[in-house]
Protein backbone atom coordinates (compact mmCIF):
# COMPACT_ATOMS: atom_id res chain seq x y z
CA UNK A 1 0.00 0.00 0.00
CA UNK A 2 1.30 3.45 -0.91
CA UNK A 3 1.28 5.98 1.93
CA UNK A 4 2.11 9.68 1.99
CA UNK A 5 4.95 10.83 4.27
CA UNK A 6 3.85 13.56 6.67
CA UNK A 7 6.56 13.74 9.34
CA UNK A 8 9.78 15.23 7.93
CA UNK A 9 11.92 14.60 11.01
CA UNK A 10 10.86 10.96 11.18
CA UNK A 11 11.61 10.69 7.46
CA UNK A 12 15.15 12.02 7.86
CA UNK A 13 15.81 9.81 10.92
CA UNK A 14 14.68 6.82 8.89
CA UNK A 15 16.91 7.79 5.94
CA UNK A 16 19.96 8.10 8.20
CA UNK A 17 19.17 4.77 9.87
CA UNK A 18 18.86 3.05 6.51
CA UNK A 19 22.14 4.60 5.32
CA UNK A 20 23.96 3.54 8.45
CA UNK A 21 22.80 -0.06 8.14
CA UNK A 22 24.36 -0.25 4.69
CA UNK A 23 21.21 -0.38 2.57
CA UNK A 24 21.78 0.47 -1.06
CA UNK A 25 20.14 3.63 -2.29
CA UNK A 26 19.96 6.33 -4.93
CA UNK A 27 18.73 8.84 -2.33
CA UNK A 28 21.11 11.76 -2.03
CA UNK A 29 19.11 14.69 -0.69
CA UNK A 30 20.43 16.74 2.18
CA UNK A 31 18.44 16.88 5.43
CA UNK A 32 17.16 20.35 4.52
CA UNK A 33 15.88 19.23 1.11
CA UNK A 34 14.38 16.03 2.52
CA UNK A 35 12.38 17.98 5.11
CA UNK A 36 11.15 20.39 2.45
CA UNK A 37 9.92 17.59 0.18
CA UNK A 38 7.87 16.06 2.99
CA UNK A 39 6.54 19.47 3.97
CA UNK A 40 5.33 19.96 0.39
CA UNK A 41 3.60 16.56 0.61
CA UNK A 42 5.55 15.29 -2.38
CA UNK A 43 6.81 12.00 -0.91
CA UNK A 44 4.91 8.71 -0.75
CA UNK A 45 6.27 5.37 0.36
CA UNK A 46 5.79 1.73 -0.47
CA UNK A 47 7.22 -0.78 2.01
CA UNK A 48 8.14 -4.35 1.27
CA UNK A 49 10.26 -7.04 2.84
CA UNK A 50 13.93 -5.97 2.60
CA UNK A 51 13.42 -2.37 1.58
CA UNK A 52 11.26 0.58 0.70
CA UNK A 53 10.48 2.71 -2.34
CA UNK A 54 9.92 6.44 -1.95
CA UNK A 55 8.05 8.14 -4.78
CA UNK A 56 8.62 11.85 -5.32
CA UNK A 57 5.69 13.42 -7.18
CA UNK A 58 6.65 15.67 -10.04
CA UNK A 59 4.16 17.30 -12.37
CA UNK A 60 3.98 14.51 -14.95
CA UNK A 61 5.86 11.60 -13.38
CA UNK A 62 7.14 10.03 -10.17
CA UNK A 63 10.81 9.87 -9.28
CA UNK A 64 11.79 6.65 -7.57
CA UNK A 65 14.17 6.54 -4.61
CA UNK A 66 14.93 3.12 -3.21
CA UNK A 67 16.51 1.62 -0.13
CA UNK A 68 17.31 -2.07 -0.40
CA UNK A 69 19.03 -4.55 1.91
CA UNK A 70 22.36 -5.70 0.54
CA UNK A 71 21.29 -8.98 -0.99
CA UNK A 72 17.78 -7.83 -1.88
CA UNK A 73 16.80 -7.54 -5.52
CA UNK A 74 14.43 -4.73 -6.50
CA UNK A 75 10.78 -5.49 -5.85
CA UNK A 76 8.40 -5.42 -8.81
CA UNK A 77 7.17 -1.85 -9.05
CA UNK A 78 3.52 -0.92 -8.58
CA UNK A 79 1.68 0.76 -11.45
CA UNK A 80 1.07 4.42 -10.72
CA UNK A 81 -1.03 7.01 -12.53
CA UNK A 82 2.10 8.58 -14.11
CA UNK A 83 5.38 7.10 -15.38
CA UNK A 84 8.01 6.12 -12.79
CA UNK A 85 11.57 7.37 -13.36
CA UNK A 86 14.65 5.90 -11.74
CA UNK A 87 17.77 8.03 -11.97
CA UNK A 88 20.98 6.95 -10.30
CA UNK A 89 24.32 8.70 -9.97
CA UNK A 90 26.99 6.01 -10.13
CA UNK A 91 30.71 5.69 -10.29
CA UNK A 92 31.50 4.47 -13.79
CA UNK A 93 34.38 2.39 -12.44
CA UNK A 94 32.17 0.36 -10.10
CA UNK A 95 29.80 -2.49 -10.84
CA UNK A 96 26.19 -1.34 -10.89
CA UNK A 97 24.28 -2.85 -7.97
CA UNK A 98 21.35 -3.52 -8.18
CA UNK A 99 22.07 -4.45 -11.78
CA UNK A 100 20.25 -3.08 -14.80
CA UNK A 101 18.82 -6.58 -15.34
CA UNK A 102 17.34 -6.71 -11.86
CA UNK A 103 15.64 -3.35 -12.43
CA UNK A 104 14.28 -4.60 -15.74
CA UNK A 105 12.78 -7.57 -13.86
CA UNK A 106 11.17 -5.04 -11.52
CA UNK A 107 9.43 -3.41 -14.49
CA UNK A 108 11.79 -0.63 -15.64
CA UNK A 109 13.28 -0.11 -19.09
CA UNK A 110 16.53 1.70 -19.97
CA UNK A 111 15.75 5.26 -21.04
CA UNK A 112 18.98 7.25 -21.36
CA UNK A 113 22.33 7.87 -19.71
CA UNK A 114 24.38 10.96 -18.90
CA UNK A 115 27.92 11.48 -17.73
CA UNK A 116 29.38 14.37 -15.80
CA UNK A 117 32.28 16.42 -17.15
CA UNK A 118 34.32 19.20 -15.62
CA UNK A 119 36.77 21.87 -16.65
CA UNK A 120 39.10 23.67 -14.23
CA UNK A 121 39.16 27.45 -14.80
CA UNK A 122 42.94 27.55 -14.39
CA UNK A 123 43.22 25.55 -17.63
CA UNK A 124 41.38 28.18 -19.66
CA UNK A 125 43.12 30.77 -21.78
CA UNK A 126 41.13 34.01 -21.35
CA UNK A 127 39.37 35.53 -24.33
CA UNK A 128 37.41 38.77 -24.64
CA UNK A 129 33.86 38.17 -25.80
CA UNK A 130 30.77 40.25 -26.06
CA UNK A 131 28.20 38.38 -24.03
CA UNK A 132 24.42 38.67 -24.26
CA UNK A 133 22.24 37.80 -21.29
CA UNK A 134 18.61 36.96 -21.92
CA UNK A 135 16.04 39.64 -21.19
CA UNK A 136 12.54 39.24 -19.80
CA UNK A 137 10.87 39.59 -23.22
CA UNK A 138 12.67 36.43 -24.42
CA UNK A 139 11.06 34.27 -21.74
CA UNK A 140 8.41 32.70 -23.98
CA UNK A 141 10.84 31.86 -26.80
CA UNK A 142 13.43 30.36 -24.46
CA UNK A 143 10.80 28.40 -22.54
CA UNK A 144 9.38 27.03 -25.79
CA UNK A 145 12.81 26.05 -27.17
CA UNK A 146 13.73 24.42 -23.87
CA UNK A 147 10.61 22.29 -23.78
CA UNK A 148 10.98 21.35 -27.45
CA UNK A 149 14.63 20.37 -27.04
CA UNK A 150 14.71 18.27 -23.87
CA UNK A 151 13.03 15.03 -22.89
CA UNK A 152 10.46 15.71 -20.16
CA UNK A 153 11.31 13.16 -17.46
CA UNK A 154 14.88 13.67 -16.32
CA UNK A 155 16.01 17.02 -17.69
CA UNK A 156 15.14 19.00 -14.54
CA UNK A 157 13.36 21.61 -16.64
CA UNK A 158 12.50 24.78 -14.73
CA UNK A 159 8.96 26.13 -14.56
CA UNK A 160 8.30 29.36 -16.41
CA UNK A 161 8.56 31.30 -13.11
CA UNK A 162 11.87 29.67 -12.26
CA UNK A 163 13.19 30.43 -15.74
CA UNK A 164 12.12 34.07 -15.43
CA UNK A 165 13.89 34.32 -12.07
CA UNK A 166 17.08 32.94 -13.66
CA UNK A 167 16.78 35.34 -16.61
CA UNK A 168 16.49 38.27 -14.20
CA UNK A 169 19.49 36.93 -12.24
CA UNK A 170 21.60 36.77 -15.44
CA UNK A 171 21.78 32.99 -15.48
CA UNK A 172 20.64 32.65 -19.09
CA UNK A 173 22.88 33.55 -22.01
CA UNK A 174 21.54 33.95 -25.54
CA UNK A 175 22.77 33.92 -29.08
CA UNK A 176 20.83 36.33 -31.29
CA UNK A 177 20.67 37.27 -34.95
CA UNK A 178 18.70 40.40 -35.85
CA UNK A 179 17.09 40.21 -32.39
CA UNK A 180 15.86 36.66 -33.12
CA UNK A 181 16.76 33.84 -30.76
CA UNK A 182 19.22 31.29 -32.19
CA UNK A 183 19.98 29.52 -28.93
CA UNK A 184 20.35 29.85 -25.17
CA UNK A 185 22.45 28.49 -22.32
CA UNK A 186 21.02 28.19 -18.81
CA UNK A 187 23.46 27.79 -15.95
CA UNK A 188 23.56 27.97 -12.17
CA UNK A 189 25.97 28.37 -9.33
CA UNK A 190 26.75 25.46 -7.10
CA UNK A 191 29.21 25.26 -4.25
CA UNK A 192 31.80 23.47 -6.34
CA UNK A 193 31.45 25.65 -9.42
CA UNK A 194 29.24 26.77 -12.26
CA UNK A 195 26.87 24.12 -13.64
CA UNK A 196 25.56 24.17 -17.19
CA UNK A 197 21.92 23.13 -16.79
CA UNK A 198 20.51 23.48 -20.31
CA UNK A 199 21.75 24.49 -23.71
CA UNK A 200 19.67 24.43 -26.89
CA UNK A 201 19.90 25.81 -30.41
CA UNK A 202 17.00 26.48 -32.80
CA UNK A 203 16.75 23.66 -35.39
CA UNK A 204 17.49 26.01 -38.31
CA UNK A 205 20.64 27.34 -36.61
CA UNK A 206 22.24 24.01 -35.76
CA UNK A 207 25.68 23.18 -37.12
CA UNK A 208 26.71 26.85 -37.30
CA UNK A 209 28.74 26.99 -34.09
CA UNK A 210 25.99 28.66 -32.04
CA UNK A 211 26.29 26.09 -29.23
CA UNK A 212 30.05 26.41 -29.16
CA UNK A 213 29.79 30.19 -28.91
CA UNK A 214 27.35 29.91 -26.01
CA UNK A 215 29.64 27.54 -24.11
CA UNK A 216 32.50 30.02 -24.61
CA UNK A 217 30.26 32.85 -23.39
CA UNK A 218 29.40 30.83 -20.29
CA UNK A 219 33.03 30.11 -19.49
CA UNK A 220 34.28 33.64 -20.13
CA UNK A 221 31.34 35.43 -18.51
CA UNK A 222 32.39 34.30 -15.06
CA UNK A 223 35.62 35.47 -13.57
CA UNK A 224 35.58 33.96 -10.08
CA UNK A 225 34.57 30.41 -10.88
CA UNK A 226 37.10 27.65 -10.23
CA UNK A 227 35.31 24.79 -11.92
CA UNK A 228 32.78 24.35 -14.72
CA UNK A 229 30.51 21.32 -14.66
CA UNK A 230 27.92 19.74 -16.90
CA UNK A 231 26.00 16.54 -17.52
CA UNK A 232 25.90 15.36 -21.11
CA UNK A 233 23.96 12.52 -22.71
CA UNK A 234 26.25 9.67 -23.69
CA UNK A 235 24.20 9.11 -26.87
CA UNK A 236 25.02 12.62 -28.11
CA UNK A 237 28.46 12.37 -29.82
CA UNK A 238 28.38 15.93 -31.28
CA UNK A 239 27.92 17.42 -27.81
CA UNK A 240 30.50 15.10 -26.26
CA UNK A 241 32.98 16.05 -28.98
CA UNK A 242 32.36 19.75 -28.46
CA UNK A 243 32.95 19.59 -24.70
CA UNK A 244 36.07 17.47 -25.15
CA UNK A 245 37.38 20.08 -27.56
CA UNK A 246 36.98 22.71 -24.84
CA UNK A 247 39.01 20.48 -22.49
CA UNK A 248 36.16 19.06 -20.41
CA UNK A 249 37.04 15.73 -18.77
CA UNK A 250 34.75 13.05 -17.37
CA UNK A 251 34.87 12.98 -13.56
CA UNK A 252 33.84 9.33 -13.34
CA UNK A 253 30.14 9.89 -12.63
CA UNK A 254 27.44 8.40 -14.80
CA UNK A 255 23.70 8.76 -14.38
CA UNK A 256 21.61 6.08 -16.06
CA UNK A 257 17.87 6.74 -16.22
CA UNK A 258 15.20 4.02 -16.43
CA UNK A 259 11.45 4.34 -16.90
CA UNK A 260 8.24 2.44 -16.20
CA UNK A 261 5.47 3.77 -18.37
CA UNK A 262 1.84 3.58 -17.26
Amino acid at each position, binding site marked *: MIKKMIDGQAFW*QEIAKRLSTGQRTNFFFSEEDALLLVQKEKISRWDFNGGVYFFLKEEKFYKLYYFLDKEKNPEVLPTLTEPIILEEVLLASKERIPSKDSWEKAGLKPYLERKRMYLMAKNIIPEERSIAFASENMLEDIFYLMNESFEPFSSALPTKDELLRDILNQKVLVSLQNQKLLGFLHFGEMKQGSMLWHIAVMPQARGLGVGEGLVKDWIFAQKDVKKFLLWVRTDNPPALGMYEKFGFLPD*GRVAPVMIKTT
Partner: protein
Amino acid sequence: METLLKILAELRPDVDFEENKELVDSGELDSFDIVSLVGELCEAYEIEIGAEDIIPENFNSVEAIMALVVKLQED
Protein backbone atom coordinates in the same frame (compact mmCIF):
# COMPACT_ATOMS: atom_id res chain seq x y z
CA MET B 1 43.86 6.09 7.54
CA GLU B 2 45.06 4.20 4.48
CA THR B 3 41.69 2.50 4.07
CA LEU B 4 39.94 5.85 4.32
CA LEU B 5 42.19 7.47 1.71
CA LYS B 6 41.56 4.52 -0.61
CA ILE B 7 37.78 4.84 -0.18
CA LEU B 8 37.96 8.59 -0.84
CA ALA B 9 40.24 8.19 -3.86
CA GLU B 10 37.80 5.69 -5.38
CA LEU B 11 34.85 7.93 -4.64
CA ARG B 12 36.38 11.15 -5.99
CA PRO B 13 39.63 10.62 -7.90
CA ASP B 14 39.62 14.30 -8.92
CA VAL B 15 39.83 15.70 -5.38
CA ASP B 16 42.99 16.39 -3.36
CA PHE B 17 41.89 15.08 0.04
CA GLU B 18 45.16 15.76 1.82
CA GLU B 19 45.07 19.48 0.98
CA ASN B 20 41.39 20.41 1.17
CA LYS B 21 40.11 21.03 4.70
CA GLU B 22 36.71 22.34 3.63
CA LEU B 23 35.53 19.42 1.55
CA VAL B 24 31.83 20.01 2.23
CA ASP B 25 31.85 23.77 2.78
CA SER B 26 33.73 24.34 -0.49
CA GLY B 27 31.33 22.03 -2.31
CA GLU B 28 33.93 19.48 -3.33
CA LEU B 29 31.88 16.77 -1.62
CA ASP B 30 28.20 16.97 -2.53
CA SER B 31 25.30 15.16 -0.95
CA PHE B 32 25.73 12.20 -3.29
CA ASP B 33 29.34 11.85 -2.13
CA ILE B 34 28.31 12.00 1.52
CA VAL B 35 25.62 9.35 1.07
CA SER B 36 28.05 7.08 -0.81
CA LEU B 37 30.76 7.72 1.75
CA VAL B 38 28.50 6.93 4.72
CA GLY B 39 27.69 3.55 3.17
CA GLU B 40 31.33 2.79 2.42
CA LEU B 41 32.51 3.83 5.91
CA CYS B 42 29.83 1.75 7.65
CA GLU B 43 30.86 -1.28 5.64
CA ALA B 44 34.64 -0.84 5.87
CA TYR B 45 34.78 0.01 9.57
CA GLU B 46 31.68 -1.90 10.75
CA ILE B 47 30.16 1.19 12.33
CA GLU B 48 26.73 2.82 12.29
CA ILE B 49 26.56 6.51 11.42
CA GLY B 50 23.41 8.10 12.83
CA ALA B 51 21.48 11.09 11.50
CA GLU B 52 23.06 13.33 14.15
CA ASP B 53 26.52 12.58 12.74
CA ILE B 54 25.67 13.32 9.09
CA ILE B 55 26.71 16.98 9.34
CA PRO B 56 29.26 18.94 7.28
CA GLU B 57 31.73 19.31 10.19
CA ASN B 58 32.26 15.54 10.23
CA PHE B 59 33.13 15.37 6.53
CA ASN B 60 35.12 18.55 5.88
CA SER B 61 38.55 16.91 5.99
CA VAL B 62 40.19 13.51 6.05
CA GLU B 63 41.06 14.12 9.70
CA ALA B 64 37.43 14.95 10.59
CA ILE B 65 36.16 11.84 8.84
CA MET B 66 38.77 9.71 10.59
CA ALA B 67 37.86 11.26 13.94
CA LEU B 68 34.21 10.38 13.35
CA VAL B 69 35.14 6.79 12.50
CA VAL B 70 37.31 6.45 15.61
CA LYS B 71 34.59 7.97 17.83
CA LEU B 72 31.98 5.55 16.48
CA GLN B 73 34.32 2.59 16.82
CA GLU B 74 34.83 3.47 20.48
CA ASP B 75 31.10 3.89 21.18
